[in-house]
Every structure is written in C-alpha cells, then in structure tokens.
C-alpha cells in the first residue's frame, strides 16, 4: 500500500479552508490539457509511446516548479491505492481506471508537487492541474501558467494556429483550460432558489457537476461550477467570467442564509444541531447520509452556530469518510454493513477530539 503520509498534507493543502470564502467554497481547481507533438493521443498510442511520453514529462519536470515531485504509476498501484488518490481528487476516474474491471493504461501516472501536478497519459498526454482552498482562480492560474510555460519550453506541445492547443476530445481544444469551483449551496437549496441559479449558469456558458466532476451526482449540496467552452476566448476571459459568476452565486448563497436566519432561525438551528448530533453519536452511516449531515453541520459552522468546530475538520470528514479511505484505515477492504460502521466510528472519533 502506498504511504500517503509521506506527502505534505496528503496532497490536499486545500483542506485547511484557508482560502477566500473557505466556508462556502471548498476548492478551486484548474487544469490545462496538453499533448506532445509527434505522439498519438493516449488512447490511440501504444504502450511504448505512452512510456516514452511519461519519461519525457518526468525529464521536463526537472526544470519546472514541479521538480522533485512524487510520481505515482497508476499501472503499478493496487486498485485501493488508486481509489484513495481519486477520492482525494488527485486523479480522474479514467486515469485510475476505476470503472469496472479495467486496468490502468501502461504509463498512466500522476506527478505531484504541493498543490500542483500533472496527470500523464490521461485522455491527453498532460493534464497540468492544481487544487487550492477557497475561491482563488487568479492565484491558481498564475501557478499553473508558470508550470505550463516551463514545460512548454522543454516539450513540443501540439498547437494549431486556428484551433489552439490540440486535445483528444474537441470539447477541450483551444486553451485546454477547465476551471472548477467546488461550492456548498445549502442556503439556495433550502430556500428553493437553487434551480433558478443553476438554470442561469447554463445560460451564461457555465456548467455544474457533482463532487467528483464529470458524470457524478450532486450530493450534500456540493456543486462544481466550471466553464463549458475552452475555445474562442482567452484564458483571462474564461477565468474572469467564471470568477464573476461564482462571486455572484456566493452572494446569492449568503443572502439565502440571511433570509433563513431571519425567517426560520429556530428551524435552521434545529436542523444543524440534529445533523451534528447524528454525526456525533450514530453507529452506522452511509456515504450519502454522511454527506447530507455534513452539509447541515457545515451550514451551521458557516453561520457560527457551532462554536469551536472548524471547517477544516468538516473538510477532513468529507475526504476521510470515503470508502477507500476507510478501507485503507482498517487495512482491509470493507463490505457494506462494516463500511458504514467504520464510517460512523471514524466520524465519532474525529468529532470527539476536534468537535465543538
């Protein structure tokens, strides 16, 4: 089993909720899709080509801000380890090959250095990516841009004068930039304003997804907002637009919370404390129930209803109560009744030491 404790912050510096609006926005994530000229895209490439791509990326990384990063070879890791990395939002489902019985591609890897890294041989040869706490689009892009520029000096990226950076899927062509903000919107859900907001998003060229990105359901009122298009606008335009809309959504969420407190303070407080009580004392918790309870408690923490409980603790619960993390903790794979017991156990212990 891989020892992720060797990584500073376990690769999740963003968990500390130190970023702007950290109690509403969990994280900002950006990725840039790049391919190396002269190699077929990952799916079409043979094993040797993909290994050559990995080698070239590792060599090139030596002179960039991701120098000295740790490399995780997906094709050499057990499924549980790959799943742990996926649950930390460090690798995609595709790179970790978590669908069905598929095996990771030869050469599929993650190079990780602090909050940034590169997924190698995912859908594209390189997915330069990073994750930061709170709403931090500008800072995030500045760091990735520096890595991209350095890597682009050492590797010939596939670039076209009309279509921009060429990607395996045309939905990513152009800038190759996808920026996502993971945001918690219980106020808008409780006041039933969420539908309007989500409809508005799609009209202004943004899209939303669940906790795990593409293809995942919305649980616990966590939404990932991101740009839909990548071509025809500059990187700054794409980021400015997303940032502007996210700030608006945050404002709506804050207004909704004010309305809730003004009109139904007793009910909200009751919901928050019931959720907290269940998390603190339940003996068996499903993943979905945990997410929903965490949503209630997180709302309470944001409204300063639960003294002494930090958002950092809640963020940790979000990650460490996932199936592979619990299995890693117990040192064996867990089936359903056991998994739910282990989850409740973990939540109880963490809240006993870090709870309010």
């Amino acid at each position, binding site marked *: 089993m891989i020892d992720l404790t060797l990584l500073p912050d376990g690769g999740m510096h963003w968990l500390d909720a130190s970023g702007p609006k950290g109690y509403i926005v969990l994280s900002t994530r950006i990725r840039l899709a790049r*391919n190396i*000229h002269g*190699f*077929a*895209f990952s*799916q*079409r490439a043979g094993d040797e080509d993909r290994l050559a791509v990995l080698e070239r990326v590792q060599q090139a990384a030596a002179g960039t801000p991701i120098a000295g990063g740790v490399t995780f070879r997906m094709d050499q890791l057990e499924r549980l380890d790959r799943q742990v990395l996926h649950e930390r939002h460090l690798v995609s489902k595709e790179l970790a090959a978590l669908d069905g019985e598929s095996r990771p591609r030869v050469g599929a890897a993650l190079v990780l250095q602090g909050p940034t890294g590169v997924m190698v041989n995912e*859908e594209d040869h390189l997915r330069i990516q990073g994750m930061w706490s709170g709403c931090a689009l500008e800072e995030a892009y500045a760091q990735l841009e520096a890595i991209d520029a350095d890597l*682009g*000096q*050492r*590797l*010939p*990226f*596939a*670039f*076209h*004068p*009309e*279509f*921009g*950076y*060429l990607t*395996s*899927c*045309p*939905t990513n*062509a*152009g*800038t190759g*930039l996808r920026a996502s903000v993971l945001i918690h919107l219980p106020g808008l*859900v*409780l006041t039933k304003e969420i*539908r309007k907001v*989500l*409809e508005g998003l*799609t009209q202004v060229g943004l*899209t*939303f*997804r*669940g906790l795990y990105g*593409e*293809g*995942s*359901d*919305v*649980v616990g009122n966590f939404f990932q907002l991101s740009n*839909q*298009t*990548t*071509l*025809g*606008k*500059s*990187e700054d*335009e794409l980021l400015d637009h997303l940032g502007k809309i996210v700030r608006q959504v945050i404002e709506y969420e804050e207004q909704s919370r004010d309305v809730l407190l003004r009109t139904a303070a007793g*009910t909200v407080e009751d919901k928050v404390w019931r959720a907290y009580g269940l998390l603190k004392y339940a003996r068996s918790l499903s993943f*979905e129930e945990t997410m*929903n309870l965490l949503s209630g408690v997180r709302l309470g923490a944001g409204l300063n209803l639960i003294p002494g409980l930090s958002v950092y603790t809640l963020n940790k619960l979000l990650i460490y109560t996932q199936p592979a993390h619990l299995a890693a903790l117990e040192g064996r794979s867990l089936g359903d009744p056991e998994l739910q017991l282990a989850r409740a156990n973990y939540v109880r212990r963490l809240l006993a030491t870090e709870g309010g």
Partner: protein
Amino acid sequence: MLCDNCKERDAVINLTQVEHDTKITLHLCEQCAQQKGVETGAAVLKSPLGGFVAAMGKGANVLPTPADGLRCPSCGSTLRDFRESGRLGCAACYDAFGPHLRDLLRRLHGSSQHMGERYIAPDTTPDARRELLELKEQLRRAVENENFELAADLRDRIRVLE
C-alpha cells in the same frame, strides 16, 4: 431501483427536496429528473459532444457518407472512429478532418478560432520564432477585426513556418 416518478426506468439520480421541514428523497431516472429541472451528471456527460456525435452517428448508420472513410494519414484513425468514440487519434487528425471539426468546434464553443495564449514550440529557431510571434499577433488582430481573408492568408503562412 425503479424511478419513483415513472416506475418504469432505472433510477440513477437521488433528488433530495426539503418541504415543510421534511426531507424527501426521490429516486429518479434521467428523463424524469430532467423534467423536474435537474440537469444530471449523465446529461452533462452526454452533451455537448456526446449528443452531437450520437446525432451524427445516427445519420451515418442509416446513410453512410463518403466522408466517414476519411482517414488521418498520421495515426490511421477514421472520421467514423471519431464519430463513435468522440476522441481523436492524434494532433494531425485536426488537419485531416479539418472542415468537419471546424463545424463541430463552432457548435461546441461558438467559435473555432483560438484566442488564448500563443504557443511556440521549443525547437523553433530564434528568427522563425520572432516572425511567428509577429504573424500570430497579426492573425489575432485580423480575427478581431473580422478580416477573415487576411486571417486565412496569415494562417497559411504560420502553418508553413510551424
């Protein structure tokens, strides 16, 4: 589990609604969820490219077009491969399937002209580099001013240099 609404299709979405202090979780199929205004992850996955490729595919199955056999000289992928998988084989596919992709890119992004950062590969000589940068800047301005004739000309010159 069957969809709570139509009781016919498999439920793939859990929709939690809070009404009058009670939480109701509905298990819905994709169609019913969409009717209720929930944009599903699956729907997002399918659109915009998935839907488009499927629509193209439908037509292609009934009536194969000559363009389906179009083959990329570099990696050997065909346009049909792309229509089925939604993924291209290599960078050269973008030129091999140029006109088809241009249409698709316009539908997906509203434009096929990259307006982001200009990239110059590391093995380009300093002189060619300077010229390329200049041409690319001119191209950007030509596109901005909608001078497409000049843009096409500039694009050709850039391609030769690249």
